[in-house]
């Protein structure tokens, strides 16, 4: 029983890590500009047009393995996990040799630091863990239900020590870029915020259309330009900083009637 416990102890770690990898890779693909993908392994090893597909393929394989490990005890999934981890080790070594500037991409965009011995060590340890789990009894959910805490903790600590991503995340939290340099929320999200503001409610009746004719972002503000029934411009500026954004509004006369702003700042 004791040996079985040890063998199955790392299954939860593997399942959680594979799922995290899937989620992070899908997030990298969804948000990913081509520039981001061009710096992440294993996508950098394939030609430009296959990068998205390569990362997606990895994510699907990880999701499949995680699901397989969780619900069945079939040796196919166990051996496939060993093979996947061993192949990852080889790919990371290759990546380090061919593209020393690229990140491993194991957890998507967070793993953008160049591949080091720690990342490679981690895949070696994961291969070992996967190898150990091959002979474990029962499917993964059983290991979740009755975890052997001390071995599980030991595994997590070893992996945490070998994960440069934890430091990257800590650094990102510490040195958060100011809002001028951060990518803003999508235009539709900001528009929804605007529509729940007092300034919007005060001017909504005067607008000729509900959709802005122009919208742009400058520094920490997103601007929405509308026309009102008098053919004047109604401009809303929604601050992108903070949770409760400030909304300002101005009515600007048409270009021939020179005297400009009748503006008043309004807060939500």
């Amino acid at each position, binding site marked *: 029983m004791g040996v079985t416990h040890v063998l199955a102890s790392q299954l939860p770690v593997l399942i959680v890590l594979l799922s995290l990898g899937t989620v992070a890779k899908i997030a990298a693909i969804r948000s990913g*500009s*081509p*520039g981001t993908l*061009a*710096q992440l392994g294993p996508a950098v090893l394939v030609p*430009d047009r296959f990068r998205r597909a390569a990362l997606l393929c990895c994510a699907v394989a990880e999701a499949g393995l995680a699901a397989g490990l969780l619900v069945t005890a079939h040796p196919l999934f166990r051996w496939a996990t060993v093979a996947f981890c061993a192949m990852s080790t080889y790919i990371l070594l290759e990546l380090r040799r061919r593209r*020393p*500037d690229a990140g491993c991409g194991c957890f998507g965009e967070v793993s953008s630091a160049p591949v080091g011995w720690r990342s490679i060590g981690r895949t070696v340890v994961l291969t070992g863990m996967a190898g150990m789990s091959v002979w474990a009894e029962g499917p993964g959910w059983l290991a979740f239900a009755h975890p052997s805490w001390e071995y599980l903790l030991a595994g997590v600590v070893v992996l945490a020590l070998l994960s440069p991503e934890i430091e990257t995340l800590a650094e990102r939290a510490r*040195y*958060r*870029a*100011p809002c*001028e*340099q951060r*990518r*803003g929320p*999508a*235009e539709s999200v900001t528009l929804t915020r605007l529509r729940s503001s007092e300034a919007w409610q005060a001017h909504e009746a005067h607008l000729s259309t509900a959709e802005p*004719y*122009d*919208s*742009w*972002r*400058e*520094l920490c*503000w997103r*601007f929405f*330009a509308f026309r009102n029934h008098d053919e004047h*411009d109604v*401009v*809303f*500026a929604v601050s992108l900083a903070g949770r409760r954004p400030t909304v*300002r*509004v*101005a009515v*600007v006369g048409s*270009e021939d009637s020179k005297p*400009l*702003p009748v*503006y008043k*700042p309004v807060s939500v």
Partner: protein
Amino acid sequence: MSHPSVEHRRVLAAAVLGREPAAPSTGAEDGEPLRAVTGEIRDISPHLIVVETPEGGEERLIIAPWATAWHGGDTPPGDLPVGARVTMRALRDGRVVERIWADTIRLTGTIVSIDGRKDITVKLDCGPHRGRRTAIIPYRASGRLRVRHPQFEPGYLFDAIGVRKDGVSLALLPATSQPSHPAPPPPYTGMQPNISGTITWSDIFDAEERGAAYPMVEPSDAACPDAGMSCAGLPYLAIGSLLHVRNVCASRSASMPIVACGCVAGRFCDRCVQCGTSPRGRIAELAPASFVELGGELIDGCFNAQIGWG
């Protein structure tokens, strides 16, 4: 989204934030103002040049005795061929020419393919708006270019200055030194009131156009999927925003609108070494006319600059 009137954005933004709307301007802190004149040579002698401007007008300009020209190499102004497209730097209210660049082009982009052994043919991907370009590196220029591009292979960046001769783009001079490995983004240092970096020029602008292509614009606003990336720690601005550019090397400054998405400039992490070493990263690409009026030399390819906005 289309841009009904990007100039109008400045007025609207100023009104809603309660600030004075600013207008594009140029100004020399010392020395006399420069004017850039572009056109096609109709007639040229050692002392006088007649050009046809892009609007179809004609300009007759005096060539200063100390004037120099570049047409793939230094050449006396009087030897320039009729029909060449020139950009000129003019003094004295723009009547006296002191520097002429003829048929000068700039090839900036990511290398797609490299062919040939002696004369090398390079295919470049110049970003989503500018498409692909093909350039030939003559054998005599290849050593000079390759030493500044340590990674001269597909997937890496390329930036060179050259001439267009008989419809062929020749790359002759390296614009800047490219780092051998892509640099990591700079650490966060807070928002500085003045950001320093390098400013380059590009030949994608219309002949008489003045303005800048800026890399840090929201991709959805500018329909530019590669935008929003920069090595210089830049803030987000919009197409239509006003950029104050100060040429540190020539002590000249100007305000100009952002007229295009400069996603190609955002990929570069190089430095300019025209006067001291600039911090890493390209801030913007200027139209040749704006670049020249700020005291820039087209064949040097860059100047050290500070920017502000508003």
